[in-house]
């Protein structure tokens, strides 16, 4: 746990315990498996999720409940099972933000939320295959 990995410029020091592994990567980035979630109080409820290895890659994440308190994506039991969630408290839910200029045009992908098991530090992007939530939903009206 105290083994500090090779740090790419721009990444703060971190340990293995902070790394979140996406065993299948994200669609379009299947080879990138290991990410850090970088949180800054001033950025709440946004976070950066930055790839640990390889060329610089990062995604802006947001807790969907911060702008959509009723967000309740229905996911298949099989999907939930692969995350080994034993207790809802272990589950961390984020959606990826596509940042735009002007910032108010930015959208969140509510169709492909990220589910993270914080106990095992494993995540998956789960695709919600119904029309309940859109791929590009505005964060501000």
């Amino acid at each position, binding site marked *: 746990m105290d083994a500090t990995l090779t740090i790419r410029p721009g990444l703060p020091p971190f340990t293995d315990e902070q790394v979140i592994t996406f065993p299948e990567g994200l669609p379009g980035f299947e080879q990138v498996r290991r990410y850090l979630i970088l949180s800054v109080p001033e950025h709440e409820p946004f976070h950066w999720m930055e790839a640990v290895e390889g060329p610089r890659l990062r995604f802006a994440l947001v807790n969907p409940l911060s702008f959509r308190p009723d967000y309740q994506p229905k996911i298949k039991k099989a999907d939930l099972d692969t995350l080994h969630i034993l207790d809802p408290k272990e589950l961390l839910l984020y959606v990826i933000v596509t940042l735009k200029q002007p910032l108010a045009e930015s959208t969140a992908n509510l169709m492909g939320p990220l589910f993270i098991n914080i106990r095992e530090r494993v995540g998956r992007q789960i695709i919600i295959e119904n029309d309940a939530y859109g791929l590009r939903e505005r*964060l501000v009206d």
Partner: protein
Amino acid sequence: MLVLTRKVGESIRIDGRICITVMEVDGRTIKLGIDAPRNVPIHREEVWLRILEENRLAAAAEAADIDLGSMADLLKQGGLTKPEEKPKTEPGKKPDGKK
């Protein structure tokens, strides 16, 4: 692309662990049954492509070096007021990023 001809009820097996069976054919619509380990993600191609494209867009947008602090401010000003929202579990990964 490998092209195989199958009849209703016949299957193809991929990599020893994935089995796709033609269940039903109705005109131009075909119903497929898929047996695969649970950790194998299976999606309709067009849905999967939309997610992939959006992920790429999201990663590219990051290159513009946008400050997430400005996003946070924007959400506070223009976003929804959250009267009864329970705070979601904080990530709490970063000792230095703690609230």
